[in-house]
């Protein structure tokens, strides 16, 4: 079979089993778009801004576990995609991004729409390639997918100069069946000796905590984690990226930890004598002040990326390997042991934890006058809990409220930008999820600031009839910025007020969607029900919420887990009692 470079690009995607690509055409990728036009296997989704192409591919990848693919042109097309690439990089999301490039003879000449995109993206991709010969396309594509999806996943960018895809140059095509690279050999299984050492510590532990992150979700190891939690009766906490690994309804789940984590999760970490960290990377939003992080604990760390181990916190038992096989081996070693985890000690430990839990740190002042954002999320859960439901979010207070108040029972259902914290992520990510699961209910919880960063995608949703449900918690502020300004800048709300807001409901309608505005707490449940009943329509719900509600508990940047600020409401209530 003889194919042109452009056809090879498309055929390679087909051979990789790619169903969807998100993209935006332009001069340098015209040959590829022409090849796309002449086939029926891959569906191309035309976004309205290249940032959305990468976020949508990312959302698709997070929900399915399969690599997301985006295709953009050179220059501004490529630079617009960078935010989405960096977002995927920080959260280790498998993605392949194809960028057009000016023809090879023009590279380096400051040609029209030329930019050194491999140079620009080098620090925010797992790897990138610049293809210089048509003969190299097939192998490079195969390598890109292999690198993106194995080991610690991540985005891989392929820069393709226009002349390399010339329709008049045809060469024999064969897609590599297997890729082997001498310089890249991702680890699978953990070292048996290290796993035995870890189990030694686990059976001796008096006050253990299992702390897990996005790695358990990415590594499809939720089932193994649940078994480990059951086998040990250890308490378990998740990072923002790890939510859903263990069902939130499991009594051993302490909620999220870290800056806006629960009192019980953070106190358990602080008092623990053994931390079992699995697929988590000790991010500063999780650890707080490093010097006071888990002062009494020995630390076991399971991670596929050796560079994550002992990067921020010195680890006692490192285990490098894929989470799934490591947990399987750990469970096996544990079941063969005569000594089991110390039930007596665990009983005492659980009593202390239940004491912290009884504080009910997430309580908020109820109101029948104004919609509390927490209430809006709780109500969302009430209405959607029986559905096949995915929730994406943007970044800020609404993201934290969703993480705290929506109990996720399954992995890959909570889709948000954790590492980079990218405002504008939620809507395009939801498009990717809906595309992957057309029958599922996909909602995006957002803020009036975040949504405006990618609001143009309402047109894409219209074109492809994506029946998303957008829940805009509209408080008129960049809520998290305002919260920090209230707490740390004496209430000087410097540029955090979002003035000149559009009428969001009307705006949604001009894009052909259904718009709603909800102000009264009493109307919320009925509005949600009405919206979620509209199976074939995108419904944009502008929910006006309490403008100055804060997210609690909160650990100030640079403070330890035991130094949480609790909600003033909670403190006042306790004092009265």
């Amino acid at each position, binding site marked *: 079979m003889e194919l042109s470079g452009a056809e090879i690009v498309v055929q390679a995607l087909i051979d990789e089993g790619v169903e969807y690509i998100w993209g935006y055409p332009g001069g340098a990728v015209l040959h590829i778009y022409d090849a796309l036009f002449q086939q029926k296997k891959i569906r191309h989704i035309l976004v309205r801004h290249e940032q959305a192409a990468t976020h949508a591919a990312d959302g698709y990848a997070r929900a399915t576990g399969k690599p997301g693919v985006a295709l953009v042109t050179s220059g501004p097309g490529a630079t617009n995609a960078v935010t989405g690439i960096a977002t995927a990089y920080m959260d280790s999301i498998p993605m392949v991004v194809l960028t057009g490039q000016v023809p090879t003879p023009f590279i380096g000449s400051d040609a029209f729409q030329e930019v050194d995109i*491999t*140079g620009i993206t*080098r*620090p925010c991709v*797992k*790897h*990138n390639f*610049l293809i210089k010969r048509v003969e190299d396309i097939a192998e490079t594509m195969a390598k890109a997918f292999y*690198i993106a999806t194995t080991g610690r996943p991540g985005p891989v960018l392929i820069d393709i100069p226009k002349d390399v895809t010339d329709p008049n140059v045809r060469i024999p095509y064969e897609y590599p069946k297997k890729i082997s*690279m*001498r*310089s*890249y050999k991702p680890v699978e299984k953990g070292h048996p000796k290290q796993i035995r050492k870890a189990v030694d510590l686990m059976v001796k532990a008096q006050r253990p905590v299992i702390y897990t992150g996005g790695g358990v979700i990415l590594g499809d190891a939720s089932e193994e984690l649940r078994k480990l939690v059951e086998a040990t009766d250890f308490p378990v906490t998740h990072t923002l990226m790890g939510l859903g690994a263990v069902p939130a309804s499991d009594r051993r789940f302490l909620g999220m930890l870290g800056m806006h984590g629960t009192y019980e999760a953070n106190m358990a970490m602080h008092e623990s004598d053994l931390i079992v960290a699995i697929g988590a990377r000790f991010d500063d939003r999780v650890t707080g002040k490093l010097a006071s992080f888990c002062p009494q604990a020995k630390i076991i760390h399971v991670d596929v*990326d*050796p*560079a994550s*181990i*002992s*990067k921020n916190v*010195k680890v006692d038992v490192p285990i490098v390997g894929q989470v799934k096989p490591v947990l399987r081996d750990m469970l096996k070693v544990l079941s063969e042991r005569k000594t089991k985890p110390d039930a007596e000690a665990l009983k005492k430990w659980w009593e202390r934890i239940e004491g912290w839990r009884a504080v009910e740190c997430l309580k908020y002042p109820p109101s029948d006058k104004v919609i509390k954002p927490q209430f809006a999320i709780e109500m969302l859960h009430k209405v959607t809990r029986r559905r096949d439901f995915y929730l994406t979010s943007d970044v800020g207070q609404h993201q934290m409220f969703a993480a705290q108040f929506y109990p996720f029972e399954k992995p890959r259902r909570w889709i948000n930008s954790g590492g980079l914290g990218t405002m504008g992520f939620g809507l395009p990510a939801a498009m990717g999820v809906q595309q992957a699961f057309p029958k599922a209910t996909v909602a995006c919880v957002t803020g009036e600031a975040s949504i405006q960063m990618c609001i143009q995608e309402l047109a894409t949703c219209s074109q492809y009839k994506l029946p998303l449900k957008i829940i805009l918690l509209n408080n008129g502020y960049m809520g998290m910025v305002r919260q920090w300004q209230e707490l740390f800048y004496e209430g000087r709300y410097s540029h955090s007020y979002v003035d000149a807001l559009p009428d969001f409901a009307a705006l949604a309608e001009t894009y052909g969607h259904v718009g709603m505005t909800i102000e009264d707490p009493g109307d919320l449940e009925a509005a949600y029900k009405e919206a979620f009943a509209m199976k074939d329509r995108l419904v944009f719900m502008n929910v006006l919420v309490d403008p100055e509600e804060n997210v609690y508990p909160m650990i100030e940047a640079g403070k330890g887990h035991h130094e949480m600020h609790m909600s003033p409401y909670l403190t006042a209530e306790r004092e009265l009692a």
Partner: protein
Amino acid sequence: MRHIISVLIENESGALARVAGLFAARGYNIESLTVAPTEDATLSRMTLVTKGDERVIEQIVKQLNKLIDVVKLLDLSEGPHIERELMMAKVKAEKGLREELKRLADIFRANIVDVTATSYTIELTGHGHKLDAFLEAVPEGAIIEVVRSGPLGIGRGAKGAGL
């Protein structure tokens, strides 16, 4: 602590930029970096000298290993090894100083590789300390220009650090 790290890396365009970029992005110290092809045309050898405490060095080694293009990496400082650096120094060699400079070059087993009426260019190979000592010994004000390669290193013994 000073570490000398030897890296075998795919001879691809951008490979050097990946290493340099890594050091810049993560704020690691880089004292010197040399790179050249090896006996295998598809591979380059990079030798870099860096400084940092144990944790920083551990991270540097891990982050370098994480680069897709890095095939093999060895921290030479962990075992017995030989280090050499090449220096070329252009010095003022006017009447009255020429003899002294020639003697100095002999003492350091250096070669004078270029001569003009007023200057010598001296080539010298050795451990960095030796090169420093030579520069110290050159009469004050005589140095016109110094070019150094940065250190190269190789492990002692019969075993190679190739593929």
